[in-house]
């Protein structure tokens, strides 16, 4: 079964709205980094944040106390439904499923909640904060805003979780009682996440993200959300979602990526939306791409938008849809020119592009892929 993209919504550090973010990427723009600090530890990190203006206009009682991640998800989800021309009413509220892809979840409130326990004791724990620490809080808020009464799932994983959510959407849509599936990938930034990824040697202290560099200098975290509405028919389709698998060690990532690419490969793959982000992922993807699809043009949006982990898979899909629709691809920023890949180093027209692969290698042992096509 191939599902079609019926609508999309995008909240990124380059702003909100699929067309406007896409246009900025085509122009070669990248998000502005800001710094993030902690009240207890004297160390500062660079991050790509969603501008406050990007969330203007969203208000709902359920979002009054909600964390940033829930607000990003709500904006992206509502935009996606709007662009698909879907209005949810009580008659069709059961006929749409909601799937969330998340990696770190509501980490800001989680940290604040636990900070009170550590600092003051259990009696100081806030009953208002605790519900927002739960992984499915953003999905719950969006379901309530939309009035979804059917299936709602939150999937947790690493950067590949967004593509796992597409596989799950395919599985759910096998049930003909469903007309649509709204898939949302979302993440928020907190200083604690930056510190954790730095200790794990995956983060660099300041931009840029240099994709496919031999030095693996690390990534910069970003935040936001991507949402797509999947339907049974349409112009741009997901021909095949590959559930991928997991690798035990970073050095084994290349093997599973090759397997995914072999399974997804067809005669003409015009371009690849890669998940290269300046970490070990790049080497693994580079080797796999060189071996399996050496002629495909390769693009990664992470130098421009940052690594949004749980949101990144959906962002990659949106990039692929936009490239298929507009028949051009933005320039890869800060890339190592010596890499033996056909990188899109300039804004590149692709007048005959019909088919793309989205490849996602997560930082925590998971990998997945999918193949998309335009009619």
């Amino acid at each position, binding site marked *: 079964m191939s599902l079609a993209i019926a609508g999309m919504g995008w909240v990124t550090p380059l702003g909100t709205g699929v067309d406007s973010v896409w246009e900025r990427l085509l122009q070669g723009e990248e998000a502005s980094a800001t710094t993030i600090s902690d009240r*207890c530890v004297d160390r500062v990190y660079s991050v790509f944040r969603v501008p406050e203006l990007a969330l203007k206009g969203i208000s709902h009682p359920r979002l009054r106390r909600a964390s940033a991640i829930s607000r990003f998800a709500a904006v992206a989800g509502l935009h996606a439904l709007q662009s698909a021309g879907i209005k949810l009413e009580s008659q069709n509220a059961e006929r749409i499923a909601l799937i969330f892809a998340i990696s770190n979840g509501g980490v800001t409130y989680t940290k604040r909640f636990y900070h009170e326990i550590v600092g003051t004791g259990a009696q100081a724990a806030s009953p208002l904060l605790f519900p927002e620490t739960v992984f499915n809080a953003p999905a719950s808020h969006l379901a309530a805003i939309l009035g979804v009464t059917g299936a*709602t799932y939150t999937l947790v994983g690493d950067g590949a979780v967004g593509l796992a959510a597409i596989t799950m959407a395919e599985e759910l849509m096998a049930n003909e009682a469903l007309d649509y599936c709204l898939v949302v990938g979302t993440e928020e930034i907190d200083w604690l996440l930056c510190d954790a990824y730095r200790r794990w040697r995956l983060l660099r202290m300041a931009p840029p993200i240099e994709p496919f560099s031999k030095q693996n200098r690390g990534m910069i975290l970003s935040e936001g959300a991507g949402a797509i509405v999947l339907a049974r028919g349409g112009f741009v389709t997901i021909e095949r979602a590959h559930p991928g698998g997991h690798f035990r060690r970073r050095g084994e990532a290349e093997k599973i990526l090759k397997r995914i690419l072999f399974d997804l490969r067809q005669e003409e793959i015009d371009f690849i939306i890669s998940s290269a982000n300046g970490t070990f992922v790049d080497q693994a993807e580079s080797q796999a791409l060189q071996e399996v699809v050496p002629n495909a043009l390769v693009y990664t949006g992470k130098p421009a938008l940052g690594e949004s982990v749980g949101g990144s898979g959906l962002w990659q899909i949106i990039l692929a849809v936009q490239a298929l629709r507009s028949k051009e691809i933005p320039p890869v920023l800060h890339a190592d020119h010596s890499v033996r890949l056909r990188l899109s180093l300039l804004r590149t027209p692709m007048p005959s592009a019909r088919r793309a692969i989205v490849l996602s290698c997560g930082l925590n042992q998971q990998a997945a892929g999918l193949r998309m096509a335009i009619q």
Partner: protein
Amino acid sequence: MAQADRRESTNNPARVAVTAAGVISPLGIGLAETLESLRSARDCVTSVMRFSVTQCRCKTAGQVSDSRLLASYAQIPRSGRLHRASHMMIQALKELVAQQPEFEPELMVVGTTSGGMSYGERYYRSLNGAGDLRHAPTWIANYPAQKPVIDAQTAFGISAPCQVIANACASGTNAIGHAFECVRSGRYQRVLAGGYDALAEMVFVGFDSLQASTPEKCRPFDRHRSGMVLGEGAAVLALENLDLARKRGASVLAEIIGYGISTDNFHITQPEPSGIGARQAMERALESAHISAADVDYINAHGTATVFNDATEGKAITALFNGVPVSSTKSMMGHSLGAAGAIEAVVCLLALQHQFLPANINFTAPDDDLDLNIVANEARPAAVSIALSNSFGFGGTNASLIMRKFEA
């Protein structure tokens, strides 16, 4: 995965067999110990020793003994670094693999709420001056929710894609329900499904802050119920296309025949008071199973023992069923959150296999507002052909699973 072999056949759905199961919970390690605890209606809730609870109202939880849990796995390289949740998943999968060593899953779907939360707590406490950060990379690497699933697969040479569902307390039932639908649709032939969660201070204090947990005994559906106690554990089930399972001569423990999911959108922590969300989940499960409410012989209730949950679940059960025996086995082992639905599916499996009704212990007096047939305090023999298991979670997510005794 042999994707080319996939069949999409919603019009001719496959029957779904459970061909193996593994479990670890406060009731015991393995199916045999669990069965013994269920039959003797053992209260397995004990004082919390893992972290300080001096400032909490609730002081107890259902806990898995570390000495028994960790002793078995000294042979796994670097097992000392793994989170307790990984050890629980490994233990559950070990039992399953011993029953069906040739079972090769195409997918693994697992529910959790907390992942390796206690490692996140250690990291945060150390960061704030209370400890040594040398082990921080290990804590961080073992914190993600998918890690215990991957660790368990790795321990037994399994390499299936995994979906980790975090739908709060419904996660385990959602995981098994989704896996069931994946096999029933013909998209997959063999799927592992389950759930896990390990006790963590933050979560314990969180429920305490909501005054959802009790300083007393956990008394589901009792007139004097005052809240839940937490638990921990893991359970895994092997789900398989029934025809293929029989063809290869696998023993069939039970069938899964129905699954229902609903979202009630009322409040992030409270169920919709009329019980509409719970009722919809059960109705959809009955519809999915193509059976009527009268066919159900036993309900393993979500039954957390909070005033609101039991009232809404009780209303929903009363509205749909007429005197069916109901128990909440959380009274014996606590609420293990993301693992609960999976462990309770194993409880239903044992009830179907061994023809008994598990008890709802600590039951002193019926709630006048709930017209329920509670299996009070003692397990009892009964003819059980069909069992329904409920799980409801934060965020208004509700799930029901229906299992049937296998008749060859």
